[in-house]
C-alpha cells in the first residue's frame, strides 16, 4: 500500500504543477512506482510540464465515467520506468467528477503504486474538494509573498475542517538576494505565520523555465538548485533526515570586495 499525497496551495501560479512533476519524477528516479494525477479538469497542464501531452488518449473523466479502464488511461513515462500520468480532461469542468469518485480512484491506485501524487487546481471550490478527497497527506506550496501565504493559511484551515491534519509546507521561489536585503520574507517569517511543519525550500531557479520549455522535469538535471531542493524533499518524504539546503545570495562584486577587506 502506498501513500496518496495532494499538492495544493489555494493561489495559482505558485508552483503546484512543477512541484507535482518534480516530486513524482524524483520518486521514480529512486525506483518508486508513482502515479501522477492531474486534478485540474478543464485547465490541464501536468501533461505539458511532464512532456507527455502527445500521448494522451483517455483522461481522468473517462476513467470515472467508465469509458475506459484505469490502466488504459495511465500514460507510462518512457524516460522513467516506474512513472505514470493520469491526465485531466480538457473539455470538461470540475463538476465532471465528485469527491467520492476521486476517493475510490485513489484507493484503487494506491494498491499498485508506492506514491499517488495529485496536482490540485487553484481555488477552494469543487476542484479542490475533489483533489483532496482521497489524499492521506497534503503538501502546501507557497511563495514568500503576502497573497500566497494568505491563501496557504486559508487552505490549512480548510484541510483541517476536512479532517486532513498536519499538512506540510514547501516554500517555493525564494530569492536569496532579496531575503538578504530584507525585501522578502524568509523561512522563519513564513513558518511563524502559518505554524505548520516545513518540508522544504526551493530557490528561484531559471532552469525551471528551461525544463518546462522542454517538458523535462528539473529534478533529473544534476546541477540546478531547484533540482537539489526537490531531491531533498523526496528523500525527506521517504523518511530520511536531510538538512535544509543553504540558500545563499549570489554575491556581487562589492560584497566579495567587502569580504576581501573584511568590513
Amino acid at each position, binding site marked *: 500500500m502506498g501513500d496518496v499525497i495532494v499538492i495544493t496551495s489555494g493561489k495559482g501560479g505558485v508552483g503546484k504543477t512543477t512541484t507535482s512533476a518534480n516530486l513524482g519524477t524524483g520518486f521514480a528516479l529512486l525506483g518508486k512506482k508513482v502515479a501522477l494525477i492531474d486534478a485540474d479538469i478543464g485547465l490541464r497542464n501536468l501533461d505539458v510540464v511532464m512532456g507527455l501531452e502527445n500521448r494522451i488518449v483517455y483522461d481522468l473523466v473517462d476513467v470515472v465515467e467508465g469509458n475506459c479502464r484505469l490502466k488504459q488511461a495511465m500514460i507510462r513515462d518512457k524516460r522513467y520506468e516506474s512513472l505514470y500520468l493520469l491526465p485531466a480532461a480538457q473539455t470538461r469542468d470540475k463538476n465532471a467528477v465528485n469527491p467520492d469518485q476521486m476517493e475510490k480512484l485513489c484507493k484503487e491506485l494506491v494498491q499498485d503504486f508506492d506514491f499517488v501524487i495529485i496536482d490540485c487546481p487553484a481555488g477552494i471550490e469543487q476542484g479542490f474538494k475533489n483533489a483532496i478527497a482521497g489524499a492521506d497527506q497534503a503538501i502546501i506550496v507557497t511563495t514568500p509573498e503576502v497573497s500566497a501565504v*494568505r491563501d496557504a*493559511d486559508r487552505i490549512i484551515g480548510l484541510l483541517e475542517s476536512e479532517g486532513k491534519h498536519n499538512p506540510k509546507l514547501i516554500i517555493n521561489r525564494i530569492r536569496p538576494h532579496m531575503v538578504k*536585503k530584507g525585501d522578502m*520574507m524568509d523561512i522563519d517569517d513564513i513558518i511563524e*505565520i502559518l505554524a505548520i511543519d516545513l518540508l522544504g525550500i526551493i530557490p528561484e531557479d531559471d532552469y525551471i523555465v528551461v525544463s518546462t520549455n522542454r517538458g523535462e522535469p528539473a529534478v533529473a538535471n544534476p546541477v540546478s538548485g531547484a533540482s537539489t531542493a526537490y531531491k531533498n524533499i523526496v528523500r525527506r518524504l521517504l523518511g530520511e533526515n536531510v538538512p535544509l539546503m543553504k540558500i545563499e545570495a549570489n554575491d556581487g562584486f562589492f*560584497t566579495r570586495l567587502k569580504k576581501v577587506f573584511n*568590513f
Partner: protein
Amino acid sequence: MVLDLIQRIFGKSCTCSKDVAKERLRLVLVHDRVNTSPQFMEGLKDDMIKVISNYMDINEQTMEVHFAQTETSVALIANIPVNRMKRGNGLKD
C-alpha cells in the same frame, strides 16, 4: 543623507519591506481566521460566558462580541451587560 547613502552602499540600512509584509499578513489573517470559521465566534462567546458567570450574572441575550480593526491593530470588543455581581466569598476555590 550622505551617511544614509554610505550605509545603503554597504548594505547596512534596511528598507525591510518584508516587515511590512509580515505585519499586514498578521492583521489580515486575524480577520480571515475569524470570518472563515463560523464556530469560532460562537465557541469564544460560550467560553467567555462560562468564565465570566463565575464572577457575575450577565445578560447573555444582549451581549455583543466582535473584532474591530484599525490601521495597525485588531481588538476584541466585548459589550457584556452585567445584571448582578456575585459576592466575593461566593466564588469557587
